[in-house]
C-alpha cells in the first residue's frame, strides 16, 4: 500500500508534501513543458513586490562546490502585473499557489497582503523576511525577532482569516528559534526554512567578486545541513507548528531527512535549474522510501528523529 502523502498547512490540505521553493520554479509557465505543476503539493511564486523591479546587474550567478550563489535582486513585474498576467494562468490550471511577498516596510507587506487576499487561486501567503527594512537602515526583517513578528502580524491582520500565512526564515541568525517563536506569536500558521544564507565568491582570473552585487544567496546541497539543523531546532521548540523544510534537496532521501527532522512539507529549489522534473522525482522517491520503511502515512514520519534514542527505549523496557 502506498503511504498516504497528504499534508496540512494550517487547515489547507495538500495532496502531497512537495512544494517548489520561491524563485526556483518561475511562475509555472516555464516548468510546464517539462512537468505537470498542478501535481505538485504547491508551487511557490518568486517573491512579488509592490513595484516592478529590474533586479541586480549581471553577473548574478556563480557556481560553487555543490551549490550556487545568486544575486538576482527580486527581479519581477510587480504585484499588479502578477495579478493580471501570472496568477490567472496558475488558477486556470488548478495549481495550488503559495504567493511569496516582499517589501521594504511593514506597511508595504500589509498592502501586498490586502491586494492578494481575495485574488482567486492563492493557497497561502509566504512572507519573505529576508528583505531589507528601509525603516531600519536596511537590516533584514529576518534577523530581528520583533521586526519579523511585526511584519507577520501586519500580514496576518491584512489577509483574510482563512488564508494561511507562512513566515520564511533565514539561517543567518544567532537564534532561529527566537525568530520562529516571534513569527508564530505574530500569527504565522506555518514556517518555511531556510532561505539562502549569504555567501561570496571571488573570480581569481578577473581578481574581482564573482557576482556584480558582491555577495549573494547560497543554495544547493551545500546548505542542506543548515536546513536540517534549523528544522530540527524549530520543530523541537514548536512541535505543533507546520514546517516547510527546504535547502539543498535533490533526492527523496534529502526530503526524508527534513521530514524526520520535523518538516511536514519539503521545498525543492535549486535542483529545478538542473532538472525541471526534479519535484516529481523527489516525490516519487520519498513515497518509495516511506513505503520501504513501513509507513502508512507521511504524517507518522514527521519529526520522528526526535524520538528518544533506542538505547533508552530498551533500558526502560528491561527494567
Amino acid at each position: 500500500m502506498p503511504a498516504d502523502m497528504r499534508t496540512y498547512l494550517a487547515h489547507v490540505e495538500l495532496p502531497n508534501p512537495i512544494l517548489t521553493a520561491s524563485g526556483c520554479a518561475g511562475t509555472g509557465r516555464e516548468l510546464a513543458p517539462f512537468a505537470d505543476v498542478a501535481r505538485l503539493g504547491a508551487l511557490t511564486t518568486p517573491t512579488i513586490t509592490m513595484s516592478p523591479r529590474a533586479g541586480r546587474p549581471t553577473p548574478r550567478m556563480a557556481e560553487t562546490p555543490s551549490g550556487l550563489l545568486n544575486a538576482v535582486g527580486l527581479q519581477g513585474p510587480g504585484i499588479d502585473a502578477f495579478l493580471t498576467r501570472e496568477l490567472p494562468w496558475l488558477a486556470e490550471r488548478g495549481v495550488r499557489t503559495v504567493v511569496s511577498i516582499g517589501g521594504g516596510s511593514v506597511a508595504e507587506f500589509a498592502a501586498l497582503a490586502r491586494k492578494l487576499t481575495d485574488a482567486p487561486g492563492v493557497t497561502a501567503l509566504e512572507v519573505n523576511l529576508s528583505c531589507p527594512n528601509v525603516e531600519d537602515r536596511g537590516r533584514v526583517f529576518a534577523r530581528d525577532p520583533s521586526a519579523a513578528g511585526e511584519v507577520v502580524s501586519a500580514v496576518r491582520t491584512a489577509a483574510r482569516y482563512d488564508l494561511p500565512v507562512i513566515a520564511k526564515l533565514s539561517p543567518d541568525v544567532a537564534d532561529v528559534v527566537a525568530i520562529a517563536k516571534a513569527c508564530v506569536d505574530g500569527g504565522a500558521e506555518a514556517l518555511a526554512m531556510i532561505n539562502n544564507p549569504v555567501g561570496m565568491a571571488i573570480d581569481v582570473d578577473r581578481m574581482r567578486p564573482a557576482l556584480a552585487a558582491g555577495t549573494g544567496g547560497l543554495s544547493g546541497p551545500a546548505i542542506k545541513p543548515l536546513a536540517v539543523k534549523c528544522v530540527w531546532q524549530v520543530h523541537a521548540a514548536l512541535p505543533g507548528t507546520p514546517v516547510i523544510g527546504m535547502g539543498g534537496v535533490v533526492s527523496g532521501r534529502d526530503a526524508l531527512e527534513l521530514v524526520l527532522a520535523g518538516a511536514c512539507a519539503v521545498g525543492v529549489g535549486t535542483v529545478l535549474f538542473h532538472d525541471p522534473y526534479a519535484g516529481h522525482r523527489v516525490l516519487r522517491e520519498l513515497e518509495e522510501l516511506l513505503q520501504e520503511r513501513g509507513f502508512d502515512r507521511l504524517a507518522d514520519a514527521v519529526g520522528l528523529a526526535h524520538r528518544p534514542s533506542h538505547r533508552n527505549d530498551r533500558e526502560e523496557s528491561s527494567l
Partner: protein
Amino acid sequence: MAGSPVQVTGTVLTMRRIDAYHAMTVVAPGIADRFRPGHFVTVAVGGPRTSTLTRRAFAVHDVKPDYGGTVELVFTVRGAGTAWLADRRARDPLDLIGPLGRPFPIPRDPASCLLVGSEYGAAGLFALADVLQQRNCRVDFVLGAASSDRVFGALRARRMAETATLTTRDGSLGVQGSVVDVLPAVIADTHADVVYACGPMATLGRVTAVCAELDIPVQVSVEEMMACGIGICMTCTVPVIGDDGVTRMTRACVDGPVFRGERVRFDDVGTIPFDAHGAPGGDRAR
C-alpha cells in the same frame, strides 16, 4: 508544437576534435525534430550525483536525421563541467534539454546574408547557412578568432558560402585583426541585406554599431551566463529595448538568445540602466 522544448536522455554517438574544439554528436530525436537555427540546448554535467548543478548551454552546430535525429554541440574545456563533457565517449547517456530560445528569423524573400562569427560561437551559424541557402539566399561568412587553430569552421564556410573572410588577432590566418575591422568592406563587397552575428557581447556590440552606421538590419545571438536555460533562474538577463520603447532586464534564454542588434543596450550590459523598467529609484521619479 514545433518550438516546445523537451528533456531527453540522449546517447553520445561520436566525439571528435574540430581544430581547437571538441564536437559531440548526441542521438536526441525529440530535439533534432524541433530544432531551428539559433536554438540552443542545455546539458546536465557530472552524472547523476553531480556537484555542479547549473546546466551548460551550447549552440547547435549541426542537426542530422541519422538514428532518428542527432544534434552536434561544439565546446571548449573551460572548467570542471566542460572537462567532464570532453571525457564522454560513444554510448554514454547525456541529459539534454532543447531546443531552447528564440531562433534566427529567416528572410521571407531571397536576400544577401552575411554571417559573422567569433571563435566557436560561429558553430551556431552553419545550420542557419543551410536554411538560408535552401531559401535561395546568398550566404557569406566572416569568421574570426585569436589564432588560426581557433577559427571555427573555416573550411566548411569556404566550401558552402559565396565568400568567406577570415580574421585572426595574430595574423596567422587571413586578415590580421578582428571580424569588426573587415566588416564594412565585406558588407560593401557582398551587398549584404542582413547580418547575423554570434560571439562575445563586446564583439556583438561593435558589429551592431557598424550595421547601424550602414543602416542594415542585424540579428545577434548573445552569450550570457545562465544556470537553467528555461527561464526560471533569472541570471542571464540583458538590458533590451522592447517594442514599446521600454528597456527591460530581459532573459537571454527565453526571450533571446537572438535579438535585433539595435535593441540590445550593449554599453549597459553588466549594469541596470537608470531608465530600465523597475530600476532602483524609478518608482520615486514618477
